[in-house]
Protein backbone atom coordinates (compact mmCIF):
# COMPACT_ATOMS: atom_id res chain seq x y z
CA UNK A 1 0.00 0.00 0.00
CA UNK A 2 2.82 2.55 0.23
CA UNK A 3 2.36 5.34 -2.31
CA UNK A 4 3.34 4.47 -5.84
CA UNK A 5 6.80 6.04 -6.29
CA UNK A 6 6.25 6.85 -9.95
CA UNK A 7 4.21 9.89 -8.89
CA UNK A 8 6.80 11.18 -6.41
CA UNK A 9 9.82 13.37 -7.01
CA UNK A 10 12.81 11.06 -7.18
CA UNK A 11 15.82 13.34 -7.16
CA UNK A 12 17.13 15.68 -4.53
CA UNK A 13 16.77 19.18 -5.99
CA UNK A 14 13.16 19.05 -7.20
CA UNK A 15 12.25 17.52 -3.88
CA UNK A 16 14.21 20.15 -1.96
CA UNK A 17 12.54 22.93 -3.96
CA UNK A 18 9.10 21.54 -3.19
CA UNK A 19 9.69 21.01 0.51
CA UNK A 20 11.14 24.50 1.01
CA UNK A 21 8.35 26.03 -1.07
CA UNK A 22 5.81 24.13 1.04
CA UNK A 23 7.18 25.22 4.39
CA UNK A 24 8.80 28.61 3.75
CA UNK A 25 7.10 29.79 0.56
CA UNK A 26 3.61 29.05 1.89
CA UNK A 27 4.46 30.91 5.07
CA UNK A 28 5.49 34.03 3.11
CA UNK A 29 2.27 33.96 1.10
CA UNK A 30 0.02 33.38 4.11
CA UNK A 31 1.66 36.13 6.17
CA UNK A 32 1.84 38.72 3.41
CA UNK A 33 -1.78 37.99 2.45
CA UNK A 34 -2.98 38.53 6.01
CA UNK A 35 -0.87 41.64 6.49
CA UNK A 36 -2.25 43.04 3.23
CA UNK A 37 -5.78 42.51 4.56
CA UNK A 38 -4.76 44.10 7.86
CA UNK A 39 -3.40 47.17 6.13
CA UNK A 40 -6.70 47.84 4.34
CA UNK A 41 -9.38 46.64 6.75
CA UNK A 42 -10.05 46.77 10.51
CA UNK A 43 -6.53 46.04 11.71
CA UNK A 44 -7.08 44.51 15.18
CA UNK A 45 -9.88 42.30 13.86
CA UNK A 46 -7.81 41.03 10.93
CA UNK A 47 -4.81 40.40 13.19
CA UNK A 48 -6.80 38.39 15.71
CA UNK A 49 -8.35 36.43 12.83
CA UNK A 50 -4.83 35.65 11.66
CA UNK A 51 -4.32 33.86 14.99
CA UNK A 52 -6.12 30.90 13.47
CA UNK A 53 -6.52 31.59 9.75
CA UNK A 54 -2.78 32.32 9.43
CA UNK A 55 -1.93 28.72 10.27
CA UNK A 56 -4.80 27.24 8.29
CA UNK A 57 -3.93 29.12 5.08
CA UNK A 58 -0.26 28.26 5.57
CA UNK A 59 -0.95 24.54 5.89
CA UNK A 60 -3.49 24.45 3.04
CA UNK A 61 -0.89 26.06 0.80
CA UNK A 62 1.62 23.45 1.98
CA UNK A 63 -0.70 20.76 0.68
CA UNK A 64 -1.22 22.62 -2.60
CA UNK A 65 2.55 22.98 -3.04
CA UNK A 66 3.09 19.25 -3.01
CA UNK A 67 0.46 18.81 -5.71
CA UNK A 68 2.24 21.26 -8.03
CA UNK A 69 4.10 19.90 -11.03
CA UNK A 70 7.34 21.81 -10.50
CA UNK A 71 8.92 22.96 -7.27
CA UNK A 72 10.72 25.86 -8.93
CA UNK A 73 7.60 27.15 -10.65
CA UNK A 74 5.63 27.11 -7.42
CA UNK A 75 8.48 28.95 -5.69
CA UNK A 76 8.29 31.57 -8.46
CA UNK A 77 4.54 31.87 -8.07
CA UNK A 78 4.81 32.21 -4.28
CA UNK A 79 7.47 34.89 -4.56
CA UNK A 80 5.32 36.83 -7.06
CA UNK A 81 2.30 36.55 -4.76
CA UNK A 82 4.35 37.67 -1.77
CA UNK A 83 5.62 40.62 -3.78
CA UNK A 84 2.10 41.51 -4.87
CA UNK A 85 0.75 41.37 -1.31
CA UNK A 86 3.73 43.38 -0.07
CA UNK A 87 2.80 46.02 -2.65
CA UNK A 88 -0.72 46.05 -1.25
CA UNK A 89 0.64 46.41 2.29
CA UNK A 90 2.78 49.34 1.23
CA UNK A 91 -0.09 50.99 -0.65
CA UNK A 92 -2.45 50.35 2.25
CA UNK A 93 -0.15 51.95 4.75
CA UNK A 94 0.52 54.91 2.46
CA UNK A 95 -3.17 55.35 1.77
CA UNK A 96 -4.52 54.82 5.26
CA UNK A 97 -1.93 56.65 7.34
Amino acid sequence: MPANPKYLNPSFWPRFAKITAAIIGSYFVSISFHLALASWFNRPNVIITTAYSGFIVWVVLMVVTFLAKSGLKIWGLYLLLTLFFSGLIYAGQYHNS
Partner: protein
Amino acid sequence: MDNRKYNILFHTHTVSGITISVILYVIFFAGSFAFFRDDINSWQRNETAIPDKVLHLDYDKSLKILDSTYVLKGRHVWFGRLHAERQTVVNLEATMDSLAPKKARISHYLFQDYKTYKSETYEESYALGEFLYRLHFLAQIPYPYGYYLAGFTALFFLFAIITGFLVHWKKIVSNFYVFRPKEKLKTLWTDSHTAVGMIGLPFQFVYAVTGAFFLINILLVAPAVLTFYGGDENKLYNELGYIPTEYPYAGKDLQKPVSINAFAEMAKKRWKDFDVMEVEIQNYGDANMHVIVEGAIPKSEKFNGFGKAVYKATTGELVAQQNPYAQTSYLDGVKNVLYRIHYGDYAGYALKIISFILGLLTCFVILSGVMLWLVARDKKSMPDKKKRFNERVVKIYLAITLSMYPITALTFIAVKIYPQAAMDFIYSFYFIGWLLLVVAFLIKNDYSFTNKYCLLIGGIAGLLVPVVNGIVTGNWFWIALSRGLFQVFFIDVFWIVLAAAGLFAFFHLYKKERIQ
Protein backbone atom coordinates in the same frame (compact mmCIF):
# COMPACT_ATOMS: atom_id res chain seq x y z
CA MET B 1 -9.01 12.78 -7.63
CA ASP B 2 -6.54 11.44 -10.15
CA ASN B 3 -3.95 8.85 -9.28
CA ARG B 4 -1.06 11.27 -9.20
CA LYS B 5 -2.68 13.60 -6.67
CA TYR B 6 -3.89 10.70 -4.56
CA ASN B 7 -0.41 9.18 -4.35
CA ILE B 8 1.25 12.49 -3.53
CA LEU B 9 -1.22 13.27 -0.75
CA PHE B 10 -0.93 9.75 0.53
CA HIS B 11 2.84 9.95 0.64
CA THR B 12 2.97 13.38 2.34
CA HIS B 13 0.40 12.15 4.88
CA THR B 14 2.60 9.15 5.68
CA VAL B 15 5.86 11.09 5.92
CA SER B 16 4.47 13.94 8.04
CA GLY B 17 2.59 11.51 10.26
CA ILE B 18 5.52 9.20 10.91
CA THR B 19 7.84 12.14 11.59
CA ILE B 20 5.71 13.72 14.30
CA SER B 21 4.11 10.54 15.66
CA VAL B 22 6.12 10.05 18.86
CA ILE B 23 6.05 13.67 19.96
CA LEU B 24 2.38 13.95 19.04
CA TYR B 25 1.59 10.90 21.13
CA VAL B 26 3.39 12.40 24.14
CA ILE B 27 1.47 15.65 23.63
CA PHE B 28 -1.93 13.98 23.39
CA PHE B 29 -1.34 11.48 26.18
CA ALA B 30 -0.10 14.08 28.66
CA GLY B 31 -2.62 16.59 27.29
CA SER B 32 -5.51 14.22 27.99
CA PHE B 33 -4.47 14.07 31.65
CA ALA B 34 -4.02 17.85 31.60
CA PHE B 35 -7.81 18.24 31.32
CA PHE B 36 -7.79 17.13 34.96
CA ARG B 37 -4.73 19.16 35.93
CA ASP B 38 -6.48 20.96 38.80
CA ASP B 39 -8.12 17.79 40.12
CA ILE B 40 -4.81 15.94 40.10
CA ASN B 41 -3.10 18.77 42.00
CA SER B 42 -5.87 18.85 44.60
CA TRP B 43 -5.85 15.05 44.81
CA GLN B 44 -2.12 15.05 45.50
CA ARG B 45 -2.56 17.63 48.27
CA ASN B 46 -5.45 15.61 49.67
CA GLU B 47 -7.90 18.50 49.49
CA THR B 48 -10.68 19.77 47.30
CA ALA B 49 -11.67 23.13 45.93
CA ILE B 50 -14.83 24.71 44.60
CA PRO B 51 -14.76 23.66 40.92
CA ASP B 52 -14.82 27.08 39.30
CA LYS B 53 -12.50 29.97 38.50
CA VAL B 54 -14.23 32.37 40.89
CA LEU B 55 -12.32 34.17 43.65
CA HIS B 56 -13.36 32.99 47.10
CA LEU B 57 -11.15 35.28 49.06
CA ASP B 58 -11.39 37.74 51.87
CA TYR B 59 -9.21 40.29 50.08
CA ASP B 60 -8.69 42.54 53.08
CA LYS B 61 -7.53 39.65 55.23
CA SER B 62 -5.30 38.36 52.44
CA LEU B 63 -3.75 41.78 51.84
CA LYS B 64 -3.06 42.27 55.54
CA ILE B 65 -1.19 38.98 55.71
CA LEU B 66 0.71 39.66 52.48
CA ASP B 67 1.57 43.17 53.65
CA SER B 68 3.20 41.89 56.82
CA THR B 69 5.47 39.55 54.85
CA TYR B 70 6.14 41.38 51.58
CA VAL B 71 5.25 45.09 52.19
CA LEU B 72 2.65 46.08 49.62
CA LYS B 73 3.01 49.87 49.60
CA GLY B 74 3.35 51.15 46.04
CA ARG B 75 2.96 47.75 44.39
CA HIS B 76 0.45 46.51 41.85
CA VAL B 77 -1.28 43.53 43.41
CA TRP B 78 -3.17 41.03 41.25
CA PHE B 79 -5.46 38.21 42.39
CA GLY B 80 -6.77 35.56 40.04
CA ARG B 81 -8.10 32.07 40.46
CA LEU B 82 -6.53 30.54 37.40
CA HIS B 83 -7.20 26.96 38.46
CA ALA B 84 -9.98 25.07 40.21
CA GLU B 85 -7.72 24.62 43.23
CA ARG B 86 -7.63 26.09 46.70
CA GLN B 87 -4.68 28.16 45.63
CA THR B 88 -5.33 31.66 44.38
CA VAL B 89 -2.63 33.17 42.21
CA VAL B 90 -1.26 36.41 43.65
CA ASN B 91 1.13 38.55 41.66
CA LEU B 92 3.01 41.28 43.46
CA GLU B 93 4.88 43.72 41.23
CA ALA B 94 7.90 45.61 42.50
CA THR B 95 6.98 48.80 44.30
CA MET B 96 7.09 52.21 42.64
CA ASP B 97 7.67 53.93 45.93
CA SER B 98 11.32 54.99 46.00
CA LEU B 99 11.27 55.23 49.80
CA ALA B 100 9.88 51.75 50.37
CA PRO B 101 12.01 49.16 52.13
CA LYS B 102 14.26 46.92 50.08
CA LYS B 103 12.05 43.85 50.21
CA ALA B 104 9.19 45.73 48.53
CA ARG B 105 11.36 46.03 45.44
CA ILE B 106 11.29 42.30 44.75
CA SER B 107 8.35 41.03 42.72
CA HIS B 108 6.61 37.81 43.75
CA TYR B 109 4.38 35.26 42.09
CA LEU B 110 2.57 33.42 44.85
CA PHE B 111 -0.13 30.87 45.46
CA GLN B 112 -2.34 31.67 48.43
CA ASP B 113 -4.74 29.13 49.87
CA TYR B 114 -8.21 30.66 50.15
CA LYS B 115 -8.93 28.73 53.34
CA THR B 116 -5.72 28.93 55.33
CA TYR B 117 -4.24 32.08 53.69
CA LYS B 118 -0.86 30.39 53.62
CA SER B 119 1.31 31.44 50.66
CA GLU B 120 3.59 29.25 48.60
CA THR B 121 6.00 29.93 45.77
CA TYR B 122 5.58 28.29 42.39
CA GLU B 123 8.17 25.62 43.22
CA GLU B 124 6.56 24.87 46.57
CA SER B 125 3.15 24.47 44.99
CA TYR B 126 4.38 22.30 42.09
CA ALA B 127 2.42 19.07 41.79
CA LEU B 128 1.81 16.19 39.40
CA GLY B 129 -1.08 17.90 37.59
CA GLU B 130 1.15 20.82 36.72
CA PHE B 131 3.88 18.41 35.59
CA LEU B 132 1.60 16.54 33.18
CA TYR B 133 0.10 19.80 31.96
CA ARG B 134 3.54 21.17 31.17
CA LEU B 135 4.70 17.91 29.64
CA HIS B 136 1.95 18.26 27.04
CA PHE B 137 3.74 21.21 25.48
CA LEU B 138 7.19 19.82 26.25
CA ALA B 139 7.95 22.63 28.70
CA GLN B 140 10.52 20.42 30.44
CA ILE B 141 12.80 20.92 27.44
CA PRO B 142 14.54 24.28 27.98
CA TYR B 143 12.56 27.28 26.75
CA PRO B 144 11.99 28.07 23.90
CA TYR B 145 13.02 24.81 22.22
CA GLY B 146 10.36 22.63 23.87
CA TYR B 147 7.61 25.12 23.04
CA TYR B 148 8.73 25.46 19.43
CA LEU B 149 9.11 21.73 18.98
CA ALA B 150 5.58 21.18 20.28
CA GLY B 151 4.28 24.12 18.23
CA PHE B 152 5.72 22.87 14.97
CA THR B 153 4.44 19.40 15.79
CA ALA B 154 0.97 20.95 16.06
CA LEU B 155 1.48 22.70 12.71
CA PHE B 156 2.52 19.52 10.91
CA PHE B 157 -0.26 17.68 12.69
CA LEU B 158 -2.64 20.08 10.95
CA PHE B 159 -0.93 19.15 7.69
CA ALA B 160 -1.37 15.44 8.43
CA ILE B 161 -5.04 16.03 9.32
CA ILE B 162 -5.78 17.83 6.06
CA THR B 163 -3.89 15.38 3.82
CA GLY B 164 -5.42 12.44 5.68
CA PHE B 165 -8.86 13.91 5.23
CA LEU B 166 -8.31 14.41 1.49
CA VAL B 167 -6.93 10.90 1.03
CA HIS B 168 -9.97 9.38 2.65
CA TRP B 169 -12.48 11.92 1.37
CA LYS B 170 -14.18 9.64 -1.12
CA LYS B 171 -14.28 6.67 1.18
CA ILE B 172 -15.43 8.43 4.32
CA VAL B 173 -19.04 7.38 4.22
CA SER B 174 -18.58 3.92 2.78
CA ASN B 175 -15.55 3.07 4.91
CA PHE B 176 -17.06 4.35 8.11
CA TYR B 177 -19.26 1.29 8.23
CA VAL B 178 -16.49 -1.04 7.23
CA PHE B 179 -14.72 -2.43 10.24
CA ARG B 180 -13.00 -5.72 9.64
CA PRO B 181 -11.08 -6.35 12.83
CA LYS B 182 -11.01 -10.11 12.31
CA GLU B 183 -10.02 -10.12 8.66
CA LYS B 184 -6.29 -9.61 8.96
CA LEU B 185 -3.91 -7.34 10.80
CA LYS B 186 -3.55 -4.78 8.04
CA THR B 187 -7.27 -4.20 7.62
CA LEU B 188 -7.59 -3.87 11.39
CA TRP B 189 -5.07 -1.04 11.41
CA THR B 190 -6.44 0.56 8.23
CA ASP B 191 -10.06 0.51 9.31
CA SER B 192 -9.43 1.69 12.84
CA HIS B 193 -7.05 4.42 11.68
CA THR B 194 -9.67 5.73 9.25
CA ALA B 195 -12.78 5.28 11.38
CA VAL B 196 -11.37 6.57 14.66
CA GLY B 197 -9.50 9.31 12.79
CA MET B 198 -12.76 10.49 11.27
CA ILE B 199 -14.60 10.54 14.61
CA GLY B 200 -11.85 12.65 16.16
CA LEU B 201 -11.29 14.90 13.16
CA PRO B 202 -13.07 18.10 14.32
CA PHE B 203 -11.55 17.70 17.79
CA GLN B 204 -8.06 17.22 16.41
CA PHE B 205 -8.41 20.11 13.96
CA VAL B 206 -9.29 22.50 16.77
CA TYR B 207 -6.39 21.33 18.94
CA ALA B 208 -3.87 21.52 16.10
CA VAL B 209 -4.80 25.11 15.21
CA THR B 210 -5.08 26.44 18.76
CA GLY B 211 -1.99 24.50 19.84
CA ALA B 212 0.05 26.08 17.07
CA PHE B 213 -1.36 29.48 18.06
CA PHE B 214 -0.33 29.11 21.72
CA LEU B 215 3.20 27.96 21.01
CA ILE B 216 4.39 29.53 17.77
CA ASN B 217 2.22 32.63 17.50
CA ILE B 218 5.53 34.52 17.34
CA LEU B 219 5.65 33.57 13.64
CA LEU B 220 2.46 35.56 13.11
CA VAL B 221 3.14 38.29 15.63
CA ALA B 222 6.67 39.19 14.56
CA PRO B 223 5.84 40.19 10.93
CA ALA B 224 2.81 42.19 12.09
CA VAL B 225 4.88 44.01 14.71
CA LEU B 226 7.58 44.86 12.17
CA THR B 227 5.10 46.00 9.52
CA PHE B 228 2.61 48.04 11.50
CA TYR B 229 4.06 48.87 14.89
CA GLY B 230 7.66 49.84 14.17
CA GLY B 231 9.01 46.83 16.06
CA ASP B 232 7.26 47.65 19.32
CA GLU B 233 5.17 44.62 20.23
CA ASN B 234 3.54 46.40 23.17
CA LYS B 235 1.75 48.61 20.65
CA LEU B 236 0.26 45.53 18.99
CA TYR B 237 -0.83 43.98 22.28
CA ASN B 238 -2.26 47.32 23.30
CA GLU B 239 -4.34 47.53 20.12
CA LEU B 240 -5.58 43.98 20.71
CA GLY B 241 -6.59 44.99 24.22
CA TYR B 242 -4.17 42.71 26.07
CA ILE B 243 -2.55 45.49 28.07
CA PRO B 244 -4.62 47.01 30.88
CA THR B 245 -4.74 50.75 31.44
CA GLU B 246 -2.01 51.94 33.79
CA TYR B 247 -2.90 54.53 36.40
CA PRO B 248 0.12 56.69 37.30
CA TYR B 249 1.72 56.56 40.72
CA ALA B 250 1.01 59.77 42.63
CA GLY B 251 3.68 59.41 45.29
CA LYS B 252 1.33 60.63 48.02
CA ASP B 253 -0.09 58.38 50.71
CA LEU B 254 -3.66 57.24 50.74
CA GLN B 255 -5.33 59.15 53.55
CA LYS B 256 -7.85 56.70 54.92
CA PRO B 257 -7.70 52.94 54.37
CA VAL B 258 -10.13 51.37 51.90
CA SER B 259 -11.76 47.95 51.79
CA ILE B 260 -11.15 45.87 48.68
CA ASN B 261 -13.95 43.56 49.77
CA ALA B 262 -16.35 46.48 49.43
CA PHE B 263 -15.22 47.21 45.88
CA ALA B 264 -15.48 43.56 44.87
CA GLU B 265 -18.97 43.44 46.37
CA MET B 266 -19.94 46.62 44.53
CA ALA B 267 -18.85 45.13 41.20
CA LYS B 268 -20.60 41.85 41.97
CA LYS B 269 -23.88 43.64 42.63
CA ARG B 270 -23.59 45.73 39.48
CA TRP B 271 -24.71 42.94 37.14
CA LYS B 272 -26.97 39.97 37.72
CA ASP B 273 -25.11 36.67 38.38
CA PHE B 274 -21.74 38.37 37.95
CA ASP B 275 -18.82 36.33 39.36
CA VAL B 276 -15.55 38.00 40.32
CA MET B 277 -12.56 36.21 38.81
CA GLU B 278 -9.74 38.74 38.90
CA VAL B 279 -8.99 41.69 41.13
CA GLU B 280 -6.14 44.05 40.43
CA ILE B 281 -5.06 46.80 42.76
CA GLN B 282 -2.85 49.40 41.18
CA ASN B 283 -0.63 51.63 43.32
CA TYR B 284 -1.44 50.01 46.63
CA GLY B 285 -1.68 52.54 49.45
CA ASP B 286 -1.14 55.48 47.10
CA ALA B 287 -3.42 58.48 46.58
CA ASN B 288 -4.00 57.28 43.03
CA MET B 289 -4.83 53.71 44.02
CA HIS B 290 -7.26 52.00 41.62
CA VAL B 291 -9.19 48.79 42.01
CA ILE B 292 -10.01 46.80 38.86
CA VAL B 293 -12.56 44.03 39.30
CA GLU B 294 -12.99 41.59 36.42
CA GLY B 295 -15.24 38.60 35.99
CA ALA B 296 -17.94 37.00 33.96
CA ILE B 297 -21.54 35.89 33.97
CA PRO B 298 -22.19 32.12 33.77
CA LYS B 299 -21.23 30.51 30.45
CA SER B 300 -24.71 29.06 30.16
CA GLU B 301 -25.99 32.62 30.04
CA LYS B 302 -23.47 33.99 27.57
CA PHE B 303 -20.31 32.29 26.33
CA ASN B 304 -18.23 35.46 26.06
CA GLY B 305 -19.85 37.40 28.90
CA PHE B 306 -16.95 39.10 30.63
CA GLY B 307 -17.28 42.31 32.55
CA LYS B 308 -15.03 44.76 34.28
CA ALA B 309 -15.39 47.62 36.72
CA VAL B 310 -12.61 50.07 37.58
CA TYR B 311 -12.85 52.15 40.76
CA LYS B 312 -10.74 54.98 42.04
CA ALA B 313 -10.00 54.02 45.61
CA THR B 314 -10.08 57.46 47.24
CA THR B 315 -13.48 58.51 45.93
CA GLY B 316 -15.07 55.16 45.10
CA GLU B 317 -15.91 56.61 41.71
CA LEU B 318 -16.49 54.17 38.82
CA VAL B 319 -13.80 55.18 36.31
CA ALA B 320 -14.43 52.63 33.56
CA GLN B 321 -16.57 49.57 32.97
CA GLN B 322 -17.43 46.79 30.57
CA ASN B 323 -20.93 45.37 30.78
CA PRO B 324 -20.93 41.54 30.53
CA TYR B 325 -24.44 41.59 29.06
CA ALA B 326 -23.51 44.01 26.28
CA GLN B 327 -22.63 42.74 22.81
CA THR B 328 -19.13 41.21 22.84
CA SER B 329 -16.82 42.52 20.14
CA TYR B 330 -15.46 40.09 17.55
CA LEU B 331 -11.95 40.75 18.91
CA ASP B 332 -12.81 39.79 22.51
CA GLY B 333 -14.82 36.83 21.30
CA VAL B 334 -11.95 35.29 19.36
CA LYS B 335 -9.46 35.97 22.16
CA ASN B 336 -11.64 34.05 24.59
CA VAL B 337 -12.79 31.24 22.30
CA LEU B 338 -9.23 30.30 21.24
CA TYR B 339 -8.49 29.38 24.84
CA ARG B 340 -11.84 27.93 25.91
CA ILE B 341 -12.08 25.41 23.08
CA HIS B 342 -8.57 24.15 23.81
CA TYR B 343 -8.97 23.92 27.58
CA GLY B 344 -12.46 22.38 27.36
CA ASP B 345 -13.38 24.03 30.65
CA TYR B 346 -16.76 25.50 29.80
CA ALA B 347 -19.10 22.59 30.44
CA GLY B 348 -18.04 20.86 33.62
CA TYR B 349 -16.73 17.33 34.04
CA ALA B 350 -18.82 15.84 31.22
CA LEU B 351 -16.94 17.80 28.55
CA LYS B 352 -13.60 17.07 30.18
CA ILE B 353 -14.30 13.35 30.24
CA ILE B 354 -15.35 13.39 26.57
CA SER B 355 -12.25 15.41 25.71
CA PHE B 356 -10.08 12.96 27.64
CA ILE B 357 -11.54 10.02 25.71
CA LEU B 358 -11.09 11.83 22.39
CA GLY B 359 -7.51 12.61 23.39
CA LEU B 360 -6.74 8.96 24.08
CA LEU B 361 -8.50 7.97 20.84
CA THR B 362 -6.14 10.34 19.06
CA CYS B 363 -3.23 8.46 20.67
CA PHE B 364 -4.74 5.32 19.22
CA VAL B 365 -5.03 6.90 15.75
CA ILE B 366 -1.36 7.86 15.94
CA LEU B 367 -0.26 4.35 16.92
CA SER B 368 -2.51 2.60 14.40
CA GLY B 369 -0.97 4.88 11.78
CA VAL B 370 2.51 3.77 12.80
CA MET B 371 1.46 0.10 12.75
CA LEU B 372 -0.18 0.61 9.38
CA TRP B 373 3.05 2.09 8.08
CA LEU B 374 4.94 -0.99 9.24
CA VAL B 375 2.46 -3.61 8.08
CA ALA B 376 2.04 -2.02 4.65
CA ARG B 377 5.80 -2.34 4.13
CA ASP B 378 6.00 -5.96 5.23
CA LYS B 379 5.97 -7.40 1.74
CA LYS B 380 8.09 -9.87 -0.19
CA SER B 381 9.25 -7.13 -2.56
CA MET B 382 10.77 -5.19 0.32
CA PRO B 383 14.49 -5.86 0.93
CA ASP B 384 15.20 -7.59 4.24
CA LYS B 385 17.49 -4.86 5.46
CA LYS B 386 14.79 -2.26 5.06
CA LYS B 387 12.23 -4.48 6.72
CA ARG B 388 14.46 -4.92 9.74
CA PHE B 389 15.05 -1.18 9.90
CA ASN B 390 11.31 -0.46 9.83
CA GLU B 391 10.70 -2.97 12.56
CA ARG B 392 13.41 -1.47 14.70
CA VAL B 393 11.85 2.00 14.30
CA VAL B 394 8.43 0.73 15.31
CA LYS B 395 9.85 -1.09 18.32
CA ILE B 396 11.49 2.10 19.57
CA TYR B 397 8.33 4.13 18.89
CA LEU B 398 6.13 1.69 20.76
CA ALA B 399 8.53 1.38 23.70
CA ILE B 400 8.58 5.17 24.15
CA THR B 401 4.88 5.83 23.67
CA LEU B 402 3.29 2.84 25.38
CA SER B 403 5.40 3.10 28.53
CA MET B 404 3.88 6.49 29.25
CA TYR B 405 0.81 4.76 30.62
CA PRO B 406 2.56 2.66 33.30
CA ILE B 407 5.00 5.39 34.32
CA THR B 408 2.16 7.89 34.70
CA ALA B 409 0.25 5.46 36.93
CA LEU B 410 3.39 4.69 38.94
CA THR B 411 4.09 8.39 39.46
CA PHE B 412 0.59 8.84 40.90
CA ILE B 413 1.50 6.18 43.45
CA ALA B 414 4.95 7.65 44.09
CA VAL B 415 3.68 11.12 44.99
CA LYS B 416 1.37 9.56 47.58
CA ILE B 417 4.03 7.35 49.16
CA TYR B 418 6.41 10.29 49.29
CA PRO B 419 4.16 13.21 50.26
CA GLN B 420 6.95 15.79 50.16
CA ALA B 421 7.23 15.14 46.42
CA ALA B 422 8.00 18.42 44.69
CA MET B 423 9.37 19.40 41.31
CA ASP B 424 12.71 17.55 41.51
CA PHE B 425 11.18 14.33 42.73
CA ILE B 426 8.45 14.24 40.08
CA TYR B 427 10.95 15.07 37.33
CA SER B 428 13.41 12.35 38.30
CA PHE B 429 10.83 9.70 39.09
CA TYR B 430 8.89 10.21 35.86
CA PHE B 431 11.74 10.66 33.41
CA ILE B 432 14.15 8.10 34.89
CA GLY B 433 11.34 5.58 35.31
CA TRP B 434 10.23 6.18 31.74
CA LEU B 435 13.77 5.71 30.47
CA LEU B 436 14.20 2.45 32.42
CA LEU B 437 10.96 1.07 31.02
CA VAL B 438 11.98 2.00 27.48
CA VAL B 439 15.38 0.38 27.88
CA ALA B 440 13.86 -2.78 29.38
CA PHE B 441 11.36 -3.11 26.53
CA LEU B 442 14.07 -2.51 23.94
CA ILE B 443 16.20 -5.26 25.47
CA LYS B 444 13.22 -7.62 25.36
CA ASN B 445 12.84 -6.54 21.74
CA ASP B 446 9.28 -7.69 21.09
CA TYR B 447 6.52 -5.20 20.51
CA SER B 448 3.59 -7.39 21.37
CA PHE B 449 5.34 -7.96 24.73
CA THR B 450 5.77 -4.18 25.13
CA ASN B 451 2.12 -3.63 24.37
CA LYS B 452 0.82 -6.31 26.72
CA TYR B 453 3.07 -5.50 29.64
CA CYS B 454 2.47 -1.76 29.42
CA LEU B 455 -1.24 -2.49 29.71
CA LEU B 456 -0.63 -4.90 32.58
CA ILE B 457 1.79 -2.75 34.62
CA GLY B 458 -0.29 0.37 33.96
CA GLY B 459 -3.47 -1.47 34.89
CA ILE B 460 -2.15 -2.89 38.16
CA ALA B 461 -0.47 0.38 39.13
CA GLY B 462 -3.63 2.27 38.18
CA LEU B 463 -5.77 0.08 40.43
CA LEU B 464 -3.24 0.60 43.22
CA VAL B 465 -3.50 4.41 42.96
CA PRO B 466 -6.75 4.63 45.00
CA VAL B 467 -5.52 1.87 47.35
CA VAL B 468 -2.24 3.64 48.14
CA ASN B 469 -4.11 6.91 48.50
CA GLY B 470 -6.52 5.24 50.92
CA ILE B 471 -3.77 3.70 53.03
CA VAL B 472 -1.58 6.81 53.16
CA THR B 473 -4.24 9.47 53.73
CA GLY B 474 -7.18 7.48 55.05
CA ASN B 475 -9.31 9.10 52.37
CA TRP B 476 -10.54 5.98 50.60
CA PHE B 477 -12.64 7.23 47.76
CA TRP B 478 -15.98 6.59 49.44
CA ILE B 479 -14.76 8.35 52.58
CA ALA B 480 -13.40 11.20 50.45
CA LEU B 481 -16.82 11.57 48.85
CA SER B 482 -18.64 11.56 52.18
CA ARG B 483 -16.18 14.18 53.46
CA GLY B 484 -16.90 16.35 50.42
CA LEU B 485 -13.42 15.88 48.91
CA PHE B 486 -14.81 15.56 45.41
CA GLN B 487 -11.54 16.05 43.54
CA VAL B 488 -9.86 13.28 45.58
CA PHE B 489 -12.81 10.98 44.92
CA PHE B 490 -12.83 11.84 41.24
CA ILE B 491 -9.16 11.01 40.56
CA ASP B 492 -9.38 7.73 42.49
CA VAL B 493 -12.43 6.59 40.53
CA PHE B 494 -10.92 7.92 37.32
CA TRP B 495 -7.94 5.58 37.82
CA ILE B 496 -10.14 2.62 38.63
CA VAL B 497 -12.05 3.06 35.36
CA LEU B 498 -8.94 3.74 33.29
CA ALA B 499 -7.01 0.80 34.79
CA ALA B 500 -9.96 -1.54 34.39
CA ALA B 501 -10.24 -0.62 30.71
CA GLY B 502 -6.51 -1.24 30.26
CA LEU B 503 -6.67 -4.61 32.04
CA PHE B 504 -9.66 -5.63 29.97
CA ALA B 505 -7.62 -4.97 26.84
CA PHE B 506 -4.71 -6.93 28.31
CA PHE B 507 -6.79 -10.03 29.09
CA HIS B 508 -8.42 -9.82 25.71
CA LEU B 509 -4.99 -9.89 24.04
CA TYR B 510 -3.78 -12.63 26.37
CA LYS B 511 -6.75 -14.85 25.62
CA LYS B 512 -6.41 -14.36 21.91
CA GLU B 513 -2.77 -15.40 22.05
CA ARG B 514 -3.58 -18.51 24.07
CA ILE B 515 -6.10 -19.59 21.43
CA GLN B 516 -3.58 -19.18 18.61
